């Protein structure tokens, strides 16, 4: 299942400067694909991407994720002096556990921050950040169903 990709919105957040390995992840996100790594040798899943499997040390391989997961834990940030975040308070930051078992950090958007819960079902979408790259975000699964 492809992620929705939000295009043409001004990217005000930190600029990412990916090397060759990481570029593949952000380019895939711009195509609507959410990637993570699974070790062909031992089957260990991991994220963020690395040049080796943290379990066995072998070369890693990219795998497409479903883009679905649940909130494993989260916080609602109510104080942050840094732009652009100070203008977006309050906002939710979560660790999302993907259906595939690995965890990714991201903002949960598209719902009141007070409604975010541990165990909440979320899906990924991506926002373009320039240079043919995009960054994943999360929203409640109901968000898609309502549309």
């Amino acid at each position, binding site marked *: 299942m492809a992620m929705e990709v939000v295009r043409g919105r001004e990217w005000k957040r930190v600029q990412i400067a990916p090397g060759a390995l990481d570029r593949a992840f952000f380019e895939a996100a711009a195509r609507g694909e959410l990637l993570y790594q699974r070790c062909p040798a031992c089957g260990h899943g991991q994220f963020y991407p690395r040049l080796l499997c943290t379990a066995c040390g072998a070369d890693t391989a990219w795998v497409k994720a479903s883009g679905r997961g649940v909130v494993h834990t989260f916080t609602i940030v*109510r104080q942050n002096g840094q732009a652009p975040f100070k203008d977006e308070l309050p906002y939710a930051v979560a660790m999302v556990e993907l259906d595939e078992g690995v965890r990714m950090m991201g903002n949960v958007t598209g719902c009141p921050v007070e409604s975010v819960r541990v165990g909440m079902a979320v899906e990924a979408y991506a926002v373009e950040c320039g240079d043919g790259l995009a960054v994943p975000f999360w929203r409640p699964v109901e968000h898609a169903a309502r549309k």
Partner: protein
Amino acid sequence: MKARDPVIVGVGLSDAPRAPHLDSTGHHVQAIRRALADAALEKRAIDGYLCAGMGASPAEAVSMAEYLGIDHRYVDGTMTGGSSFEFHVQHAAAAIREGLCETVLVSYGSDFLSRRGRTLGTGGFGLSRVSGADMYSAPYGLPIVGGYAMVARRHMHEFGTTSEQLAEIAVGVREFAGLNPNAMYREPIAVADVLASRMIADPLHLLDCCVVTDGGGAFLMTTAERARDLRKPAVRVLGAAGAQTHWNISQMPDYTTSAGATCIPEAFARAAVHPNDVDTLQFYDSFTITVLVLLEDAGFCKKGEGGAYVEQGHLRRGGRRPLNTDGGGLSACHSGMRGLFLIAEAVRQLRGEAGAAQVPDARIALAVGSGGWLSCIGAVVLGRE
């Protein structure tokens, strides 16, 4: 005690919590002079040096050694965040036992409040471009406090831990701050005050968070044999251990358990000390949740029962095992990396120098530092002779 058993023989703290007259180097120098005077040691006796800091130089230990004029035979700039100094005790103790050096200085200095203002936990890092692992977290605006809030949230979810229970930790530590003339905040607080303070990152309130101050410290270690000629009673390093489960909060394997679950029992085993033998705890209290997780990981209660344990009052003044008797990072002093102050306060207690905050007949102290986001934990068991 064997001749080369490692001991702490001198401790010094620099001016805190506000010291606009000192820069970070000034904090180092003032604290080092006070530690040398405390031990009645000459600077030229130092042949081992360890330090860590938030300065620009990754070569902080060797550049400080040059500034201070220390011709070391052993040097170590291990940087694990706030727990660096517990790791330093472990390393220095091994170096002393092995005979790599005789007299070790560990120092720290920070002008955080005067120089950078009060945004350590809520200001982010102000980076405009990121690479590597930071690309998978920096776009989401998680401040330092937010990482700890995620730990608190998960702990509440799994075990029913409450904000009231976390607040008990802040209340107890504040009582000790009232006894410390150098503490940042000294007015007593109640649980209701913590809950009424503004939410910074749910579920952590302002009073669940450490203060931001200036401050530095130094301590001196040597052999038990050499300590006999010095002024103050030596404090023994009975056992030390460190461990790491992650660095970035996104990589924490279990959001309710730290590397303390590994290294604190190891430190106890090396010291041949049981948790029940510990008279006072000097625990890294960057946030109330930090203490709660470390208490469980240390084995004072089962995983998930930290909230109930705290409510029983063991950590309070007059309790079985008083916590952070200098007022802690929550109320007294946190200049960015608090680990050195944990050692300093443990030594003060074991020497019986803590005045109104003295734990009666304190014989064994446990100092546990946490660096990063409950990432790198260092545990040190100290005892008086």
